[in-house]
Every structure is written in C-alpha cells, then in structure tokens.
C-alpha cells in the first residue's frame, strides 16, 4: 500500500511561537487519519501546510506524491479542502456556488450527487446568507467534495454541531472512506477520532505526543488504573501508606489519586493499611483509565 501523505520533521514558527515542532507521520491511501488535539496544538497549521496554503519552515512533505508548496493546479485538482474557517459569498445560492466551483475540476461530481451527500436538497436554491451555521458548514463540505478528491482535508468539520448532526457527518465521512477517499481530519473531540479514524496522532504544543490506532491507544490506556479515595484527618504516618505503592500518588485537599499498573496489589496495601489503623477511606473507588483520561493527560489538561 502506498502512502497518500508522508511528513517528516515538519516545523513552522510564527515569530517566536513554534506552532509545529518536528512532526512526522504517514497516511496510507484510503485511510481515515485523525489529528487530535486541543486548540492551539498546531493542527490547522499542519493541515494547511499539507494543503499548500501555508509554507513550512523545514521538513519533508509529500502529498499524493507531490510537494504541496509547488504542486500548483494539478495538485489542487486532486484534493478537497474544508478549512476550519472559510468564507463563501453569501449572496449566491447553494446551486450557483456549487456550479461556480465545480467547473474548475477535472473529475467533478454532479451537483445532484453532492447535494444529496451533504443532505441540502431542499436548500439548493436558497441564498447562503439564509442558511443556518450548520447548513453553511455542509456547503463547505459540498465544495470540498465537488471535485471527487482522492484526498480530502477536513479541519474540525463538526465543531459546533449537535450530536445528531455530528452522527450524520460521521456517516458521510465513513461513506467517503468506503468509496476509497483518503480522509485527513482534525478534531478536538476524542470520541470523533476514536469513532472514525484508522489511525490517530495526538498533537499538543506543536508536537506529536501519541499515535496509533484507536485500539492500541485504548490498550495502552487500559494497562493503567486509578485508585481514588478521601483520606480523613488521621494521626497515622502517611509515609507508611504511600512508600510501598507501585503506582504514583497525587493528592490535593486530602483527595488522593493513585495511578498504577498494579491495582490489585496497591489496593490490598491501601486497604490493609487503613483497616490496621481503623480508618475508613471516603469514597474509595478503582477505575481503569479511559482513553479520555489518557488523552487529557497527554495534552496536559488534566488539572
């Protein structure tokens, strides 16, 4: 299988800010690839370099075998772009807009086909100014699809959607993938990446902090568990509680949280310690780490 995208050592700075700082990844043809990360992680900068919208400072980039910085028209004929924020002339109707842009592509889809894909049939002759935000987002999507792209970039395609609209977009993206289109999407919804992607990279602060399939990320997650409890005011020496633990303890306001790969042993030690001293631990629970816990930890938002 060849790769639709190969990126290695990509960097981009805005002044002193290193927005993308040594990012490498590959996207095999036909895959759905998610770049997951919080606002400011560098997702848009990365995809806009791949789209040819921004210039990189350094690094190797190959998209559909071309360098997006120099690929020009032939390159843009083969990709679809849905920007995070892009304007559209609001005075035109949906049909006029699709008609205008479709002429530019070699492999254009019919307006009827695109409009059905994005479910805007009834709005075809409505001016874009009269569409809701979600409907305008679907026009963006329609414009990304109108040239039957081999590869489509979706920068936060469902941000701000209600759950039902998000589900429908997911079905659409899965349909595209089933038809052989390579999809690169950015999102800050873990759920979305997990649901759609064959492969995920997690970005934070301009770097890739984790990567893998949703399953492998989940497996890494489930090797760790958390033990949580409240420690009442006691005279006992707490060093005896914490020192023998396998896992790592964190505490604040007497709420203790222990992240461990050996939950059984650690729990036995904790309860043994407490019972021996006649202490009752408030709200004692053991949970396996969810993918979400891992994600929040990775991106440093688990305060």
């Amino acid at each position, binding site marked *: 299988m060849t790769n639709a995208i190969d990126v290695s050592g990509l960097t981009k700075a805005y002044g002193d800010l290193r927005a993308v700082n040594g990012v490498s990844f590959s996207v095999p043809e036909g895959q759905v690839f998610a770049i997951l990360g919080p606002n400011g992680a560098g997702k848009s900068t990365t995809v806009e370099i791949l789209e040819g919208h921004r210039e990189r400072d350094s690094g190797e980039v190959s998209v559909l075998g071309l360098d997006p910085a120099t690929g020009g028209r032939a390159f843009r004929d083969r990709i679809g772009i849905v920007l995070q924020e*892009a304007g559209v002339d609001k005075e035109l109707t949906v049909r006029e807009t699709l008609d205008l842009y479709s*002429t530019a592509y070699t492999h254009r889809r019919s307006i009827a086909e695109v409009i059905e894909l994005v479910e805007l049939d009834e709005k075809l002759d409505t001016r874009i100014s009269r569409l809701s935000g979600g409907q305008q987002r679907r026009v963006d999507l329609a414009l990304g699809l109108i040239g039957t792209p081999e590869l489509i970039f979706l920068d936060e395609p469902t941000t701000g959607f209600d759950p039902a609209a998000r589900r429908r977009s997911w079905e659409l993206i899965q349909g595209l993938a089933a038809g052989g289109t390579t999809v690169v999407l950015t999102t800050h919804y873990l759920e979305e990446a997990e649901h759609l992607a064959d492969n995920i990279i997690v970005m934070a602060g301009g770097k890739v902090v984790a990567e893998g399939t949703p399953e492998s990320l989940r497996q890494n997650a489930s090797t760790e568990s958390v033990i949580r409890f409240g420690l009442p005011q006691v005279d006992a020496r707490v060093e005896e509680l914490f020192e023998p633990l396998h896992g790592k303890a964190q505490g604040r306001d007497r709420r203790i949280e222990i992240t461990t790969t050996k939950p059984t042993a650690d729990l036995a030690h904790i309860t043994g310690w407490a019972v021996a001293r006649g202490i009752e631990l408030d709200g004692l629970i053991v949970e396996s780490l969810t993918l979400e816990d891992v994600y929040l930890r990775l991106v440093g938002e688990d305060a």
Partner: protein
Amino acid sequence: MSRDLGILWRSIRAESRIFWRSPVGAFFTLGLPLIMLVLFVALFGNDSIGHPEYGDITTAQFYAPGLGVFAAASATYTNIAINLSMRRDDGILKRVRGTPIPPWVFLGGVILSAVWVALVATIVMLGLGVAAYGVELELDKVPAMIVSFVVGTICFATLGVALTGVAKTAAAAPAIANATILPMGFISDVFIPLDDPPSWLTWAGNVLPLKPFAVSFTDAMSPFTATPGFQWGRIAILLAWTAVGGFVAWKTFRWEPVPGAPKGRRRRNRSAVV
C-alpha cells in the same frame, strides 16, 4: 484553456450576481452619480449654448460623460478595492486559492464583471442625459468612446486590485480608495471643469489616470472635437497606469486574511461619497 474560459464566464456571472444582490453597493455605484447629474443641472442650469457652427449644445453634454466616467471609475476601482479586501478578510479568497481555479481567471472575473457594472452605470448616466437633458451622441465618435471606456475601466479595475494588495484589511480599503479617487475627481474635469487651476494641478491631473479617462471619453462626445476623436496620448497614460497597477498587484496581492482581521462585515460600510 477552454475550461478556463468556462470558469471565467461562470466567474463573471457569479461576480455580477454578487454585486447586484448587494443593494447598497448598487445604489452608490449607479444611483449616486445620477443624483449628482440631476443636482448639477439644477444648481448650475442646463443652458443652451447657441453655437454658430454646432447649433444648440447643453451643459449636460459635458456633465453627463464626466459623471459617467466617475461612475465607471468607482464601479471598478472603489468597488473592487472594497469588495475584494472584504472577501479576503472573510476567507473567500483563501477558499478560491485552494481550488484549481487559476488566479488570473478569478481576478479576470472580478475585473470583467466590474467593467460590466461600469458599462451599465455609464449607459444609464448617458441615457438619462439623452432622455432628460438633450445630450447628443455622434455615431462617428462612438469608436473613440468605446476605446476610452474599455481602456479606462480596465485601468481602474487593475488599480482596484492593486489597492486590495496594498490595503492590509478591509477597514483600510475604503479610506484609501476614497482618499485617492475624490481629490483626483476635482482636478480631472469629471465634475465641473476648473477655471484656471494652478499649473501644478493641471500637470497632476494630466499624469494621474482619472483625467486622461475623463477627457478622452468626454471629448468623444463633445461637438468641439473633430472626428474620429481618438486621443492616443491619453490612452497611453491609461495603459501605463494599467501596467503600474498590474505590477503592484502582482507584488502585493494576498489571498489569506491577516491573522485576526475582523470577519463578517459583508454589508458595505463605505463613506457617504462614491
């Protein structure tokens, strides 16, 4: 190439629709110059100059083409600078740049649709002159009018694209456009011809682009100029300005908004003058 012409045609059509569906812009471009014609005639009169050789000539014979040129310049220069920079701030140009539409086709559509709007504005102006104020056209000099009009509007449209490149955001564009076109209007014989202006003003008018456009067009309607009425010197100045505008546009034009430029001001907020 034939695909490009197809895109160009659709693009011109789309640009024109966008223009005519924005009532404020259409009013400023078409309506305001007409109001000025009515006012000029009301204020300064539409006296017939009995001329031994040419018969009756009205002053509107000079106001109408002058204001027609002014309408054409604002339909191209001012409108392009304002609308294109606004569409850049809104991210529309960025979207276009991500498609296979060639830049020259997109900008060609912008320029040609503005020329089309200018044509409508000028025809309406002359139409009012002919219908209400006794303005007359000489068929022999119509080719000279057409040459002046085509070269003049393409020149001002190109300058409008150049100004879009120079203006950082859409907030700056109307200010620069008005601050350049209005003073030029007063020294370019588009409103009322000046009596005895200081020579440096005459000189400035002659080398700036508006007066060559206005004079070459107005003279082609003046009974005092000889047939066929071409003014190649003035046309050459317009072509030189077109080249300057093209060069500045080529060097400065950006498709991306500057980071943080305010978006969504889709309704025109131009100053009270054209």
